[in-house]
Structures are given as structure tokens and as C-alpha cells.
């Protein structure tokens, strides 16, 4: 048996691959659900209902999907150019940090001016955070996987230091949290009496924009060329170093924006549990989407539904809500195999 590359991957196959991967992951997780002593059909039904079963559940899922779209895009853009950015978690917190500093009443500006400023600054902070590892990679050949991973821990400690020090909310009852952003720096709500905010539109717009850039512009072409074969791109006269750094700024920027949008749209202030691993889940989102910007939206909604649904399920059954994390991890691994089967076919001999 050996693998033979398909000359063209049919669209149906590239849509079937994530569906098959998710189905396989759900089947494997059913074993864990059964081990917990819960009925598998009932548990999955509760999960689907908790994520999609009512208007409120739907808005919760979309609220959760918003940062996942952005971190998913961050991973997709970087992985496309073979820049292994595993540091979206840290970049997200840097974006959130800058957002609470600038949006906390430092400037008394009208909302139409302050809000873009806060969001752009948050994105810039995320981009700057990834620029360091990217420079180390292109300049000294230091593997960016390890540096971006280690930076996640450094950033979290840095945020923790500021939340217990300079940024600590004097009205926060001693909790390590920042003061809330002012009203002019808040993203508007999309649906009354829910938590869904305009960050979703921002994320959707950016996904469309990235798809356009990716397929219709020189920038996107260069990105893909560098990812496919950096040496060939170099021979073709492309400024590979500059393209790498540009990709790092965009990828880190998207993750930073995810943090800024969470603060200005959802939480209002910054704590150390702002993100339950959005940065890491973003990698799964990007892989399920096969690094396609529009696919990222679908994958992010799915992963968000898993998390929201698992919370609801674990309240009603004995299944711990960590089942969601297992399901996400298994989806990633199954997706890798499914992607392989879509790109290659098995041949005898």
C-alpha cells in the first residue's frame, strides 16, 4: 500500500474531510461519555440543544465564535506561510491589555474615534508580540514554535503583574482585575439582552477580506508561494524575509484584535481568565478549515458550539465539561488524517 497524490482535490472531498473528521472525533468521545455513565445519545442531544437549541443559545455560540474566528484566521494566515505561530494566546492578551489601557479613560474621545483607536492599537500590540519571534526566526534561525509558546507564559505573567500592580482596579474588591473600559470604548451589542456584540461583524468582515487578499492579490500570492517553497520564492525574486515579517504582523494583529474585541465587546475589563485557550483552539479552527479564511468561520462556529454545548451538557449529566477540550483535540488529529486522505489516494503495491 502506498500513497499517491491526487492531481486535483475535488471540492466535495475537501468539504467531506472536516465532516468525516468531526464524526470520527464524536464517535471516539462517545466512549468517554459512556465511561462517565451517561447515555451517549442523550448527552449529545443535550449538547446540541445547549449550543443551538434556542435564540439565546445561538447568540452565546456566536459570541464564543467571535474570538475563535479571529485566532483561527491568525493561525491560518501564519500557517499558510509556514510561520508556526503557536503564540496567539499571548498575542490575544497583549491586545486585551492595550485595549483596557487605552479604553480605560486615558483619552476622552467620541466613540467613533476612540473605538477604532483602541481596536487598532490592540491589533498592533498583538502584531508586535509576534514580530519578536519572527525576527529571531529570519535573522538567527531560532525555531518560532518554542519562542512563541514560551512567550505565552511570559505575557501571562506580565499581565498578572500589571493586574496586581499598576492596572489593578481600586474598586475591584481586591481581585486582580483591571478597571472597566469607558462607555465610548465599548463595541455595540448586536442583539438586545444577549451578549452578542459587533466584534462578530468585524471578524466576519476580516475573514472575507483575507479571502479576497489570499486569492485576488499579489500579497496573497506571495504568502502562499513562501509557504509552498521559500527557496523557490527567493529565486523568483520575492523578498521572503519581508513577506515573513508582514505575515507575522497580520497574524499577531488578528490575535491581538481578538483580545481587544473580547474586552471592548464582552467583558469590559481584563482578568487572567479572559481567554479559556482561544489561542490554542484557533489552531484547531484553522486546521479544520484547511487554512481557508471562509472555512475558518464555519469551523469557529462549530468549535464554539462544542464549548457552549458541553457546558450545558455537563450541568445536566455527570460528564465533566473537559469533554469539549478532548473533542477539540481529537477533531484536530482526525482532521490531519482526513486531510491526508483527501489529498492522496491509497494505491496497492
Amino acid at each position, binding site marked *: 500500500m502506498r500513497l499517491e497524490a491526487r492531481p486535483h482535490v475535488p471540492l466535495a472531498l475537501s468539504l467531506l474531510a472536516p465532516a468525516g473528521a468531526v464524526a470520527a472525533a464524536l464517535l471516539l468521545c462517545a466512549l468517554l461519555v459512556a465511561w462517565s455513565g451517561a447515555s451517549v445519545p442523550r448527552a449529545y442531544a443535550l449538547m446540541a440543544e445547549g449550543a443551538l437549541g434556542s435564540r439565546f443559545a445561538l447568540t452565546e455560540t456566536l459570541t464564543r465564535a467571535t474570538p475563535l474566528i479571529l485566532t483561527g484566521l491568525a493561525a491560518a494566515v501564519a500557517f499558510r506561510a509556514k510561520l508556526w505561530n503557536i503564540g496567539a494566546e499571548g498575542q490575544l492578551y497583549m491586545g486585551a491589555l492595550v485595549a483596557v489601557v487605552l479604553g480605560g479613560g486615558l483619552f476622552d474621545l467620541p466613540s467613533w474615534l476612540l473605538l477604532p483607536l483602541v481596536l487598532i492599537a490592540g491589533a498592533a500590540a498583538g502584531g508586535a508580540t509576534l514580530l519578536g519571534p519572527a525576527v529571531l526566526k529570519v535573522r538567527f534561525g531560532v525555531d518560532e514554535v518554542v519562542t512563541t509558546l*514560551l512567550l505565552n507564559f511570559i505575557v501571562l505573567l506580565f499581565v498578572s503583574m500589571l493586574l496586581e500592580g499598576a492596572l489593578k482596579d481600586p474598586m475591584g474588591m481586591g481581585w486582580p482585575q483591571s478597571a472597566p473600559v469607558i462607555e465610548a470604548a465599548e463595541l455595540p451589542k448586536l442583539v438586545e439582552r444577549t451578549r452578542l456584540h459587533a466584534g462578530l461583524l468585524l471578524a466576519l468582515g476580516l475573514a472575507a477580506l483575507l479571502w479576497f487578499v489570499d486569492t485576488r492579490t499579489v500579497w496573497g500570492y506571495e504568502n502562499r508561494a513562501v509557504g509552498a517553497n521559500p527557496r523557490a520564492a527567493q529565486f523568483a525574486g520575492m523578498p521572503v524575509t519581508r513577506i515573513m515579517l508582514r505575515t507575522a504582523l497580520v497574524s499577531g494583529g488578528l490575535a491581538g484584535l481578538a483580545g481587544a474585541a473580547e474586552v471592548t465587546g464582552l467583558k469590559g475589563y481584563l482578568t487572567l481568565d479572559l481567554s479559556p485557550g482561544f489561542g490554542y483552539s484557533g489552531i484547531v479552527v484553522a486546521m479544520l478549515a484547511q487554512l481557508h479564511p471562509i472555512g475558518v468561520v464555519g469551523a469557529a462556529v462549530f468549535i464554539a458550539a462544542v464549548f457552549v454545548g458541553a457546558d450545558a451538557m455537563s450541568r445536566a449529566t455527570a460528564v*465533566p465539561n473537559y469533554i469539549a*477540550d478532548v473533542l477539540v483535540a481529537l477533531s484536530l*488529529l482526525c482532521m490531519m488524517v482526513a486531510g491526508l486522505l483527501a489529498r492522496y489516494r491509497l494505491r496497492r503495491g
Partner: protein
Amino acid sequence: MAEILDILVSAAFWTAVLRIASPYILGTLGELVCERAGVLNLGIEGIMVLGAMTGWMTVYQGGGLWVGVLAACTAGALLGLLHALLTVPLGLSQHVAGIGVTLLGSSLSYFTYRLVLPQASTPPTIEPFQPLPLPGLLAQTPLTYLAVALVGLVAYVLYRTPLGLAVRTVGENPAAVEAQGLSVTGLRIGAVVAGSALMGLAGAFLTLSAFNAFFFNMINGRGWICIALVVFASWRPGKALLGAVLFAAFDAFQLRLQQVAGGALPYQLFLMLPYLLSIAALVLMSRRAAYPRALMIPYRKGER
């Protein structure tokens, strides 16, 4: 100044250094074995979490301490096998597969822990390994002695046996191994499984020796630091031991400095130092880094 000297000459300090170094020694050795065979194993972080949880849970459920150690190694080896199957015969991205294995290892551990102990607000404890004084040496727990002995064993196997030669060659020039009639796939899978068992042991050290309970986030980036230490050690077991001890000495020193200089600086600054140090080590060593030449390059028979 005198205070700093006092710290450095005290026996208690060096006892702590070896204790702190042990999981790094084991984890770095494990990663080194994988990478020497040409496979980057980013699953290390999750494998350490699973090793820590499995070892602890086995003892908590009534198993002996050494049974716990064995269980942790087995759990590590199984996750390693998963990583190996994805990356060696299937040739999938070692980066992404590793991240996936890490996510799976940690989420499975947390799931299992919560399932068995749904209401544990303060983590239940076990009776861990006790220090075992050897004549002329600092008193350490058995797993620390084992870690140091394993450095010798891995070095011996890698440099003095035909198997070690084959493993090293498969990470440099797999086609040459194939030409000798050996299986590239078999050697790589074996190395990743063995290395991952060591990572599982590294995790179990924390719950069975250093502490007596399992906490969420207890590995806390130690796996990633091991990956940096492998680069620092130029993929050599002896240097890995040296690197881990140097790193631990630095860590133990900052812990004591924190007590001496307590309050003057935020404690988070001290906690950042190990991570910053790892990045600095990577940058310093990057110019001279002699990566195994086939690292991260999947091998497919008859393909160039």
C-alpha cells in the same frame, strides 16, 4: 553579596537544584531521543501532563509508587505511539501533530481527573517517594537517581551500540539506513515511543516525588522548556544533563533570591526568568545548532 554566596554554598540549595532538575533531565532526554531519530515531538507538554496524572491516579487508587511510575511511562509511550503513527508512516506535519497530541494529553488528563474526583476542591494527596540518602551524595528521591542513571544509559545506547548508531543515522540520513536493510519507519516509531515514555516519567516525577498531588496546569510549560534545552544541549545526553542542572540552579537561585529580596520586586518578574532564559539560550545556541539533518523531514520510500 554575602547572602548570595551563602545561598550558593549551602547543601540545601544543591539538593533543591537536583530535585528541580529531575523532570527537565527526563523530559530533555526523551525529546532528545525523538529528535535524534528525526522526529520533533511537540506532544511533550501533554505527555508530561498525562504522565503526571496517570502516575498519581494509579497510586491514589491503591497502586504502589513503582506501579505508578510504570503506568506513567506506559501512558507516555501510548501517546508517543499516536504521535509516531501520525508523523512517521503517514508523514503528517510534526508541528501540528505535536500540538494535537499536547491538547489531547492535557484534556484527557483533566477529564479523567474530574471524572474520578468531581468535587475535589483541595487536591487529595498520596504518600510520595521519600529521599534516600546515599553515602557521599546529597539525599534525593529514587527517581532523581534514576534520571541521572538514564542519562548514562541513553548516552551508552546512542553512542556505543548498533541500535544507537541506527537511531542516530535515521535522523541524519534515513536513505542510508534503508540501504542497510533496516526499517526507517520501525526505528523512528521505536525512538518516539521510548522518548515519550521518558516524558511520561518526567511528568510522574512531579506528582510522585516533588509534590504529592496533581494540580491543573502543574506542568506549566516545562515541556516547552525541555525542547529549548535539547537545542542548548546540541542533541547530546551529557550536555542535556548539564543544561538541565544549570537551568535548575538558576531557578533555585531565583526562588531563594525572591525570599531575600521579597517585596522589592513583583514575584512575576522572577517567575518570568526561566522562560526568558530558555529563549536566550535558543538565540545563543542557534548559530551553532547542529540539527539532526533529517529532523522534521518525513521519509517516504523511493521518494526524494
